[in-house]
């Protein structure tokens, strides 16, 4: 089963199946690439600018040129979208062809002689560029795309130095696509990348073209908003400034920005992002390529919640005074905490790790509580379950593996709002390879056909008893998959439901040789790290009523876990529910301000990098816990980040091997065998995410996300 995680093996599997959206495999024999895998048998040889190059059969001329290291200018072609061939920028000369050919759409034939440096190609490119610029406004100085514009760059490299255009330029009405995407439609060159993205990846057929020739317009036919959780990606796709970011409009120029490679924490996927900063301010967030997680997409929340980093920030330690919370010094805050802790007995001191808690602060908090003699710590939203077996709470098939599944059962989850990027993969699995997707829970609109089996536990029992027709579908599938949502785990009867699901997984062969299709889709970035580190209550602590509660970035805690008379200490970056409940607030850094480890839902540890300094008196969360330990008389033995990471690797060795997935063992149904079967309730399964745009303290503080929420409601 561990073979599924080998990237070499995966490349082979992916190369052998042809899918609509998958780019041509990059397995080549050329000077440019090294490859550990043998070249595919079906290759052909073509000549590019006089040098022979071997490419897989069925590749395009453009791919042949790329393989040979020749860059072909293009606007409409994008490797993750279908081929349109309408911009004509990629024209090359092919020997014996009567005209220049559009290389992105032309299949390469054996012994083709491709020329890209001839006067014909130069003239063709200059001609295409002249036509494109004829109707393109000369507003680069006030265009947000300026500096990172494909049209600008390619006009400089491939365009002519003069034009013959004397008429008036065409005017196009701007379209209203909602609070995220700004449109200036006179700049549009009709590459239709946005249309194809919306149709193929996002799965909302909102965008399209109307009119022909000079009157072509991109729009929504009748005026409506672009309703997708991934709509922001069209900003990156747009080769010109027709679609730009509304919140980022006129705030910075691309060459002023400092880019920091980081990881998103808005959902449990851990999408890779670039944090663009100017001075001490985060100006925007853009996706970073990671084929194994997010490819090159990110959700709108990941992209646009950054303005929440500038609002409701906790920048000084605070303590409850007569008229509410008031700023105090660190010493005063620590003294108050020490006094409260001294009054509590061991298990009455409790720690709750929230959605945005990072692994370093969780391990520091766990060590501190353990040194104080308390085993009373828990992850928010994961109340009843144990985490002894890693495979019971991970996405075992990995995110890429979703595409190999052929029968998918969603239980109590809505991937469209919990992890939009994963939903795009599910959509691909469903539409390209024909996977059957079924749902137990509230009806879903996932942008692809979903079979609705039922609402709750009764349907699950029916499946387990093999009396439901979908059982047969799963049983007969080669790679069946179950996706369990965080909404189900958070229920009172979560344990009993998981027992049923494990039993169903055994019966349908969800886990077999080389395949583990039992997947848990978490709804927060901090959860898996907490479970990996064993941030769960000990047996004695389960009964203890807490007198002092440490909320580690925890804002969505259950009221029952924080007694009304408890002394609450909040460590975090934003003034939200946790901070308003707190007696003492200690200012922590937000995810763009600290270098910390997050483990995504498939168990992949990844590290964020500090893009800007923490604001005010805020500090890295783990250093706050470290300082607190000194005051509480239980000093922690680590003083720098490397030492705390060494401790992290001691507790959970996989945390050291970042960006890699550690395979986990499946206990063949015996994970919950020692626990007596519980009773289930009839309440329908629902997703844990009610509003996609507001799930944690950062997104709740964001004005952009608030605007999205209000437009979604109307």
């Amino acid at each position, binding site marked *: 089963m561990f073979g599924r995680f080998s990237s070499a093996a995966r490349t082979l599997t992916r190369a052998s199946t042809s899918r609509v959206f998958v780019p041509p495999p990059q397995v080549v024999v050329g000077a440019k690439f090294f490859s550990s895998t043998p070249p595919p048998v079906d290759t052909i040889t073509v000549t590019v600018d006089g040098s022979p190059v071997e490419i897989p059969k069925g590749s395009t001329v453009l791919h042949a040129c790329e393989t040979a290291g020749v860059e072909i200018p293009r606007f409409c072609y994008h490797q993750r979208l279908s081929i349109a061939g309408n911009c004509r920028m990629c024209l090359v000369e092919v020997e014996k062809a009567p005209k220049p050919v559009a290389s992105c759409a032309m299949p390469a034939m054996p012994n083709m002689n491709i020329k890209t440096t001839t006067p014909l190609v130069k003239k063709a490119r200059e001609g295409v560029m002249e036509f494109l610029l004829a109707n393109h406004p000369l507003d680069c100085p006030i265009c947000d795309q300026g500096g990172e514009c494909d049209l600008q760059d390619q006009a400089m490299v491939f365009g002519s130095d003069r034009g013959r255009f004397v008429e008036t330029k065409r005017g196009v009405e701007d379209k209203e696509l909602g609070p995220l995407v700004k449109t200036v439609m006179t700049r549009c060159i009709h590459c239709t990348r946005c249309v194809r993205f919306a149709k193929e990846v996002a799965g909302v057929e909102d965008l399209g073209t109307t009119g022909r020739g000079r009157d072509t317009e991109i729009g929504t036919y009748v005026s409506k908003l672009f309703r997708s959780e991934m709509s922001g990606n069209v900003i990156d796709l747009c080769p010109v400034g027709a679609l730009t970011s509304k919140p980022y409009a006129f705030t910075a120029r691309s060459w002023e920005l400092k880019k920091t490679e980081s990881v998103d924490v808005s959902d449990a996927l851990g999408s890779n992002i670039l944090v663009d900063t100017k001075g001490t301010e985060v100006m925007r967030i853009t996706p970073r390529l990671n084929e194994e997680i997010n490819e090159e997409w990110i959700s709108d929340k990941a992209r646009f919640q950054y303005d929440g980093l500038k609002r409701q920030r906790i920048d000084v330690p605070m303590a409850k005074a007569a008229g509410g919370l008031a700023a105090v010094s660190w010493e005063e805050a620590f003294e108050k905490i020490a006094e409260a802790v001294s009054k509590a007995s061991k298990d009455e001191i409790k720690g709750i790790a929230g959605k945005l808690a990072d692994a370093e602060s969780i391990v520091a908090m766990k060590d501190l509580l353990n040194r104080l003699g308390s085993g009373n710590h828990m992850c928010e939203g994961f109340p009843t379950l144990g985490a002894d077996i890693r495979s019971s709470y991970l996405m075992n098939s990995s995110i890429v593996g979703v595409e190999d599944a052929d029968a998918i059962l969603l239980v109590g989850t809505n991937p469209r709002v919990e992890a939009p990027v994963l939903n795009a993969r599910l959509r691909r699995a469903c539409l390209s390879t024909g996977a059957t997707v079924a749902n137990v829970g509230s009806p879903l609109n996932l942008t692809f056909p979903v079979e609705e089996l039922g609402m709750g536990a009764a349907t699950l029992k029916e499946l387990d008893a093999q009396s439901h027709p979908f059982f047969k579908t799963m049983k007969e599938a080669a790679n069946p998959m179950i996706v369990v949502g965080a909404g189900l785990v958070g229920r009172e009867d979560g344990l009993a439901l998981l027992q049923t699901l494990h039993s169903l997984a055994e019966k349908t062969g969800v886990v077999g040789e080389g395949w583990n299709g039992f997947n848990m889709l978490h709804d927060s970035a901090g959860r898996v790290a907490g479970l990996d580190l064993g941030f769960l209550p000990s047996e004695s602590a389960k009964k203890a009523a807490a007198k002092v509660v440490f909320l580690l970035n925890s804002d969505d805690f259950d009221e029952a876990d924080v007694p009304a008379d408890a002394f609450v200490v909040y460590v975090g970056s*934003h003034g939200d529910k946790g901070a308003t409940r707190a007696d003492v607030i200690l200012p922590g850094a937000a995810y763009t301000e600290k270098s910390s480890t997050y483990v995504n839902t498939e168990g992949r540890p990844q590290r964020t990098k500090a893009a800007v300094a923490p604001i005010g008196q805020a500090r890295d969360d783990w250093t706050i816990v470290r300082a607190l330990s000194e005051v509480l008389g239980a000093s922690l033995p680590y003083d720098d980040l490397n030492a705390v990471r060494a401790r992290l690797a001691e507790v959970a060795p996989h945390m050291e091997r970042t960006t890699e997935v550690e395979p986990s063992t499946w206990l063949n149904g015996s994970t919950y065998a020692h626990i007596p079967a519980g009773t289930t309730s009839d309440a329908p399964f629902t997703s844990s995410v009610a509003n996609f745009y507001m799930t944690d303290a950062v997104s709740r503080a964001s004005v952009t996300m608030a605007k999205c929420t209000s437009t979604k409601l109307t």
Partner: protein
Amino acid sequence: MSVSKFANAPLTRYIAKDASKGGIINKIVDGNFFASHVLKSSPRTLVGTDDKGNQYYESMTSQLGRHRWVLYSDHDDYVDAPTGIPPEWHGWINHINDFTGPEMEATKPFYAIPATVTKTGTPDAYKPKGSWKHPAKRSWGKYTSFCGV
């Protein structure tokens, strides 16, 4: 003309009031005052009066280009008063055309608002949001902090 009659004459009262507003010395040094009240006092024609009471005079015996002038009704803004000349009189007083205010009245667009004297230089002058004089000082802070409620 007796002295008392002269002192009570409307024009005399006007001149006296006008002179007292800006200070006697200033008014004497100011050529406009002398020209409009003494040199051009006769012969002259009152061409019209606008809504605010500004009087528009013409004297065809004066030098061409200096033959039209206005006596402002509101002496408080003697210096800046030209901006208060309503648009319908603008063409006439600036020798752009020969149409008087009442004649231009018909061309007024429906959205026209009453002409006002500029507030530049007064305490009511416009201050942009970044201006130091703007009562609400612009916050250059990069974030807003949690206030505790």
